[in-house]
């Protein structure tokens, strides 16, 4: 028996939504209305042409592919869907994601994964400034490099960077863990290099596996909060 020759089951053919001929609001309303047990589990969105807010606020565990470059806030507030962007993503991709997976096959603009609480954000290319700003539990794996002020005020979760990090990495960091394989232009206030523990290596191995990334965990450095900014200290008064 040849599985490859088996006829396609209708359910697995993606439903196609072409933004060249239909309204973005209708697309989002339809995707947001999908029940958790929907049989329409695969969607393909054509001709995004840089439109903003494509595939936002989805709560059903469906697979969505955006065929082209997306504008701002693509896959924002995602809660359970697996969303792949076959192109670049504009500002704020997967912002405030709760769960699920968002995979950018190209580059991401600023504030990728901003404030996201959960799920996995994979960026195959580079991310520009403020990647993971104020992240609250999401895991982000960037296979390229990130721009300045990445992980600014990051609270929890993991940011893995296979390339380099720009200026002021992890400024005013809380308890997010940052793993960088390449160079770091500079560390932000209260961010410091931490020893890489066995648990860290285990966590990083699993993150790389989930992101489909191949890299030696021993080639990474880990950064975290020095925790000196958590509380007001009178010796810092001159800095305000």
């Amino acid at each position: 028996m040849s599985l490859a020759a088996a006829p396609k089951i209708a359910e697995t053919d993606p439903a196609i939504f072409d933004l060249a001929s239909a309204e973005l609001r209708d697309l989002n309303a339809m995707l947001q209305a999908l029940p958790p047990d929907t049989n329409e589990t695969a969607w393909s969105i054509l001709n995004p042409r840089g439109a903003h807010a494509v595939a936002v606020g989805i709560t059903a565990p469906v697979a969505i592919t955006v065929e082209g470059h997306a504008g701002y806030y693509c896959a924002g507030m995602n809660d359970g869907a697996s969303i792949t962007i076959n192109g670049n993503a504009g500002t704020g991709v997967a912002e405030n994601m709760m769960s699920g997976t968002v995979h950018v096959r190209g580059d991401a603009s600023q504030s990728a994964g901003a404030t996201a609480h959960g799920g996995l954000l994979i960026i195959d290319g580079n991310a520009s400034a403020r990647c993971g700003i104020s992240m609250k539990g999401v895991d982000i794996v960037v296979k390229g490099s990130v721009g300045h002020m990445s992980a600014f005020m990051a609270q929890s979760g993991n940011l893995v960077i296979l390339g380099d990090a720009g200026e002021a990495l992890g400024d005013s960091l809380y308890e997010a863990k940052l793993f960088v394989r390449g160079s770091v232009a500079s560390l932000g206030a209260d961010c410091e290099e931490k020893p890489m523990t066995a648990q860290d290596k285990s966590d990083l191995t699993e993150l790389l596996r989930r992101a489909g990334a191949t890299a030696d965990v021993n080639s990474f450095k880990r950064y975290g909060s020095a925790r000196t900014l958590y509380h007001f200290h009178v010796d810092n008064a001159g800095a305000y």
Partner: protein
Amino acid sequence: MCGIAGLFLKNRSLEPELGALTAAMLTVLTDRGPDSAGFAIYGSGAPGEIKLTLRAPVYFDFEAMAAGLNLSVTRRDDHAVLAVPAAREAHVRSFLAANHPEVAIVSSGARMELFKGVGLPSDVSNRFGLSGMSGSHAIGHTRMATESAVTTQGAHPFSTGPDQCLVHNGSLSNHNDIRRRLIREHMSFETQNDTEVAAGYLSWKLRSGAKLDEALTSALDTLDGFYTFVVGTETGFGVLRDPVACKPAVMAETDDYVAFGSEYRALVDLPGISKAHLFEPEPAKVYFWERPTREGPTREGAA
């Protein structure tokens, strides 16, 4: 907000389409800047001649004024381009100041023409016939006013030197101080607008002998605030973002052109965009592309 569109052609066969491509980019950026729009376009020039772009109330008779000076004029809505032998420029300027105070000189240059006005970007483009214009490069802007009033004078681009223009997305915080310092250097300003100060600063640096990339590099030290600038000179096209890079910028480069858009949406209908190299200009890094002469090679780089 505000939107910026810029297009610098490397392939001269695209020059007849420059205006139409720029107009389409500006229309896409309407929701970033619906209150006014403008553009500078670098078209053909004649040796020994400069072009003065003038603006006057719609009832003004540009043709009669030009006939009186024995010059040719091309009227476009409330703007007109007056072709002036370079040797007569000072005379024409003083004639206009003395006899037609209602006429404002918007720009001057060997090749640059500059048009701007209040209204939706598509309406502004149509009023001036942008789609029918050709040239080597063009820079346009759609404005959502923050720092000064919604007037034609406050619309972008700003020009404070020959063949020089600048458009801006952002806001400067030290423009009053810089304006005072430039006035002491004999630069003059028409508005209270922050962008005009940035344009004046770059013109002052260029007038002092700096190259475009050198002028932009020194702007990083002098201008404080948020900015993405796109600037044009007779032969060049430059981009600069402030070190914090709050204001968006996307660029596309192919063998045929370099294009700038505040958002990728503005670039989506350019020819060959699917194969273009797409990138975000890095913060605090000067980008420029230049054609030293009509026949020379394209010079490009990042300083």
